[in-house]
């Protein structure tokens, strides 16, 4: 039992608290500590990925209590993959937030960032259903703070919607857990899986209710239609780097669906069947509405937000198959869509910083127009799932995995036609922003802003859009976006090895017996 399993939760918690207690007035110290903390988290995630790569499911018993009674953390290939993705994304986006100066638009950006990471890592690691609820709340409460970072009327309004929606989601989560506890008498996921499997089929009415309630909760987190209404305004009005980190938040919902409905309610059982039948139509509608929304938006932030909804729809189509092949394709596409979605939000923020707003209408030519346009095009092509980037492989594998499915015609039709809509929407946004730009450029745009100078100790608030004059280092923002795009290129070039890893993770997920063995058996030496 490696104690490093708890490190992804403890490390951000300690760093976040230290930032609030010791460094609240010193932004430079906050930046150094927070980025160093995320680098350390990435190191831990790499080590844990190596540990999970052996194929052994690692279990960490908190307080050394025996399994169904104490809380356990489980590290399998999927959890390690999600941890690694979270840490890498957080580091790059944090560099962007520092470079663009977003982190000094309000108080406690870095502390909230660390608490957000704590919630995310905990949600990916935990093996206890109620503990999952608690980690969801941790990541949500940090996200509320991050979402309204910088203030502004529109952002606060969107924040109210976001919180109200998620409060209802939390209530539903508790209801689902209450029902499942009343039926099974346990909250440990592995133990629950064992008891569900042993339950006769005619006694599962209440269990099915609980499973569907749980699915609704995760659908709210993942923004599946018709529970997606919170997402467009929240993501479009959130600060750019925060929206980019939120690219992983919808994937938390997808992760939880994969986790629960492969382990606790596997597809073979009646309960899993009900959920799969509900999930697939919802996924297809999500995909269609997301991609059509790209075409209908008049705001670049909303374009990126609807693209995020569309990519979650694609993911959910694959997940709803609940077969090892489709799950592997989903995991590959999950990595891709997280990177591409985050890149799109960051590029939108770069454009907003130079234009002053994000409306899709002709405006003055931007400083660094060529580079930003190239970035935008790359991320738009990646997001729409066109060659030559990894989204194309991801979609291809999803199509392949659904070939024999009963709904194959609908799936293929929706995926292919909505891809076309997405390309058209992205092309329209790009041509308005970059090709209809007025010449000449702004009166005297200074392509090389002066040295950033010392960071003012007094933080400025109430500025909805970051302007370039505040940027600590515009070059750093370009490096951060470039790093995300480089990640997509690497995922394309290394598609073979990445797919083999995804297949190994999917094979592990579809063998619940291994989890039951790791968590419930061999508990000598525990209390």
């Amino acid at each position, binding site marked *: 039992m490696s104690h490093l399993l708890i490190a992804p939760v403890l490390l951000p918690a300690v760093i976040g608290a230290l930032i609030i207690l010791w460094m609240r007035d010193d932004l430079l110290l906050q930046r150094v500590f927070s980025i160093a903390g995320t680098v350390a988290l990435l190191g831990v995630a790499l080590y844990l990925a190596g540990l999970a790569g052996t194929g052994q499911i690692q279990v960490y018993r908190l307080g050394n209590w025996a399994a169904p009674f104490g809380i356990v953390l489980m590290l399998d290939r999927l959890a390690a993959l999600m941890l690694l993705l979270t840490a890498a994304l957080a580091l790059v986006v944090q560099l962007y937030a520092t470079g663009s100066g977003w982190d000094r638009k309000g108080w406690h950006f870095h502390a909230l960032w660390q608490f957000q990471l704590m919630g995310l890592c905990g949600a990916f690691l935990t093996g206890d259903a109620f503990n999952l609820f608690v980690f969801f709340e941790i990541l*949500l409460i940090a996200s509320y703070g991050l979402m309204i970072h910088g203030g502004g009327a529109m952002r606060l309004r969107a924040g*109210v*919607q976001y919180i*109200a929606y998620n*409060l*209802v989601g939390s*209530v539903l989560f508790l209801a689902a857990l209450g029902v499942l506890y*009343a039926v099974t008498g346990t909250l440990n996921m592995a133990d629950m899986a064992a008891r569900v499997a042993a339950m006769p089929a005619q006694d599962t009415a209440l269990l099915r209710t609980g499973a569907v309630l749980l699915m609704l909760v995760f659908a709210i987190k993942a923004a599946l239609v018709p529970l997606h209404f919170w997402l467009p*305004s929240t993501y479009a009005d959130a600060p750019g780097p925060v929206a980019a980190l939120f690219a992983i938040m919808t994937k938390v919902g997808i992760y939880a669906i994969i986790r629960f409905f492969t382990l606790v309610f596997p597809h073979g059982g009646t309960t899993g069947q009900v959920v799969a039948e509900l999930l697939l139509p919802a996924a297809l509608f999500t995909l269609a509405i997301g991609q059509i929304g790209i075409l209908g938006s*008049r705001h670049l932030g909303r374009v990126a937000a609807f693209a995020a909804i569309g990519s979650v729809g694609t993911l959910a189509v694959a997940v709803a198959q609940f077969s090892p092949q489709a799950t592997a394709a989903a995991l590959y596409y999950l990595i891709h869509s997280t990177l591409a979605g985050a890149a799109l939000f960051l590029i939108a923020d770069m454009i907003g910083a130079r234009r002053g707003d994000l409306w899709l209408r002709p405006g003055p030519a931007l400083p660094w127009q060529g580079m930003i346009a190239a970035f935008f095009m790359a991320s738009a092509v990646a997001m729409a799932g066109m060659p030559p980037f990894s989204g194309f492989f991801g979609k291809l594998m999803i199509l392949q995995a659904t070939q024999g499915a009963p709904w194959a015609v609908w799936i293929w039709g929706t995926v292919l036609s909505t891809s076309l809509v997405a390309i058209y929407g992205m092309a329209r946004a790009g041509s308005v922003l970059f090709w209809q730009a007025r010449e000449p450029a702004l009166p005297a745009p200074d392509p090389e802003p002066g040295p950033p100078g010392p960071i003012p100790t007094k933080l400025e608030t109430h500025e909805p859009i970051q302007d370039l004059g505040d940027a600590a280092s515009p070059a750093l923002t370009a490096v951060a976006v470039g790093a995300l795009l480089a990640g997509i290129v690497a995922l394309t070039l290394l598609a073979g090895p990445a797919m083999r890893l995804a297949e190994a993770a999917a094979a592990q997920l579809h063998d619940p017996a291994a989890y039951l063995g790791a968590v419930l058996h061999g508990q000598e030496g525990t209390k």
Partner: protein
Amino acid sequence: MELLLSSAIGVMTAAGIYLILRRRSFAVVLGTTMLSYAINLFLFSTGRLVVDAPPVLRDGVAAHTDPLPQALVLTAIVISFGMTAVLVMMALGAWLEGGDDRVDMPRDDRAPPEDA
């Protein structure tokens, strides 16, 4: 007692759902509070309703009540209380900044302000 508890949960849930569908933030805050009260009672009932029984094992006592839902309810109360406080603060901020307490997004969020 079963009837009392289940009808209380049902009425509070119905009131909560009605209130969260209103357009003003104050009603929505009250609605989420109602919903979380209802769910706390519901969590209590998941351990089966037992009266006058100790929650911890004790010698010479035959009937026990399940202590776990009580612990879950405590956690749920703390979390929903904190979240509601955040929601109140945020609603207050949105009212001060935006000038009204509606929870739906204004048109300016979707379309450029000048082509109204």
